[in-house]
């Protein structure tokens, strides 16, 4: 189903290219990001005595190109490669390959005209522990606008479907496919220019759907007695079990961005996630420092 949508999008993408009378391939996309993350409750455990923390360093690079259809619309095709390494949980080290196809339309001429962006993405992620390998497909819709010279905002909606690897069945009546997930996510982002070289952003994200959590064997009973889990299996990475449950999360984040030049910048961000599923509550924090480059 997801592959069909992706194929349809690719066909539409190239059909638009052919039919655009003045269309032309324009800018190359060559972006890179080096980031360092400090993550609290990396296993998203609902139990404080199970929560694990770790640090991650990752390098991501994107290559692609824009296709300008006319003065207000453009397409993009971007391939992404990323590699992440963890300090302690090195079995979570992973390599990611992705492809994104998108369409962006600005509603008229001028800085303050709103825009609409639609994209479809595919990501293949391979972990050191192969049982964690997964493929994800997502559809993304964003609407945004500059309101003043300093203030801009966007609202986005996305739907993600993840296909994970088969896992060992531990309870015959419950699926073991903990990484076969789907969820939708909506974000509101506000950007404010503090100075020519400083930009602050704040965002709120609401996510509804499947989430995956890990816990030690001592807490499994607490999960299963009062909650309905979608899937459960044993887990090598955090040494207990991993389960999937339907829930909702709220993510609050803020970032401070410094422009080194028009082509590069530094970002410092803090993210706090609060979620609940059945009787379980989840909290996690993520601090990130990143260097970003754009060709």
């Amino acid at each position: 189903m997801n592959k069909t949508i992706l194929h349809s999008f690719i066909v539409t993408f190239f059909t638009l290219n052919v039919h655009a009378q003045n269309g032309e391939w324009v800018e190359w996309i060559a972006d890179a990001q080096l980031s360092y993350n400090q993550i609290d409750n990396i296993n998203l455990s609902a139990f404080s005595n199970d929560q694990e923390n770790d640090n991650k360093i990752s390098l991501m690079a994107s290559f692609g190109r824009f296709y300008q259809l006319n003065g207000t619309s453009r397409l993009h095709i971007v391939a992404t490669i990323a590699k992440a390494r963890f300090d302690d949980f090195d079995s979570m080290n992973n390599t990611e390959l992705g492809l994104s196809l998108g369409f962006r339309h600005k509603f008229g001429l001028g800085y303050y005209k709103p825009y609409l962006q639609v994209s479809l993405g595919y990501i293949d992620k391979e972990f050191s522990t192969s049982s964690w390998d997964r493929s994800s497909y997502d559809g993304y819709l964003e609407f945004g606008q500059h309101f003043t010279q300093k203030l801009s905002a966007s609202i986005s909606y996305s739907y993600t479907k993840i296909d994970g690897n088969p896992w060992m069945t531990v309870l015959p009546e419950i699926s073991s496919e903990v990484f076969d997930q789907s969820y939708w996510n909506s974000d509101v982002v506000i950007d404010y220019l503090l100075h020519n070289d400083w930009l602050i952003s704040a965002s709120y994200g609401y996510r509804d759907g499947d989430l995956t959590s890990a816990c030690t064997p001592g807490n499994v009973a607490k999960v299963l007695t009062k909650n309905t889990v979608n899937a459960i299996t044993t887990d090598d990475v955090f040494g207990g079990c991993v389960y999937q449950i339907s829930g909702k999360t709220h993510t609050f984040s803020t970032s401070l961005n410094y422009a080194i030049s028009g082509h590069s910048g530094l970002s410092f961000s803090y993210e706090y996630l609060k979620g609940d599923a059945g009787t379980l509550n989840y909290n996690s924090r993520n601090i990130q420092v990143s260097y970003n480059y754009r060709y």
Partner: protein
Amino acid sequence: MKIKNSFYYCAIIFCCSAGAVNLQVTVVNQKQQVIENAVIYINKTTTDLIKDMVIVDQLDKEFIPYVTVVQKGSAVNFPNNDEIRHQVYSFSKAKQFEIPLYSGNTSEPIIFNNTGAIAMACNIHDWMTAYIYVVDTDKFAISDKSGKAIIENVPNGNYEILVWHPKLKGNVETTAQQVSILNQDKNLDFKITQKSMMKAWRAPRSVKRRGY
């Protein structure tokens, strides 16, 4: 050699007697910071304006220069030296125009027949902004990084000098200073009030947020 030197002396004496001197201007803001890209000009209409062909370039997705002064009636060409396409437009009262998506040097020059400030931008790359200031005099200059500018060959007389800058708060007339020129170079200091104004953000924030 003697003949050559004598010629220079004569030229200098002639210039001085004709009263053509230089007016050196320094521009600072309300915080005493020197101001680059301020336009300083004599508020006196020149009848025989030189209708130049002026160039505002586009390179690395920026307009170069950021501020350009042209004499009324001049044509401005907007060559695109990026290997991509730009769409240049302005909504300013002094000149509204749009150059549809183009690459290379294919656009027709734009004629500027009204005095005043023209803010322009690119519709594809929102951070690309620049200004053209149209004057009806041939005596003008733009301040450099040290806030200094020289208006050359100003004849003897009494003048009103004005300063304009993209961040100028209020009307350009509020900057007016009267000056008398009489056979001698003159220094003039301007203090202008600037409003808070920022360039649109360009730097990358994340690989996932492409932004345009």
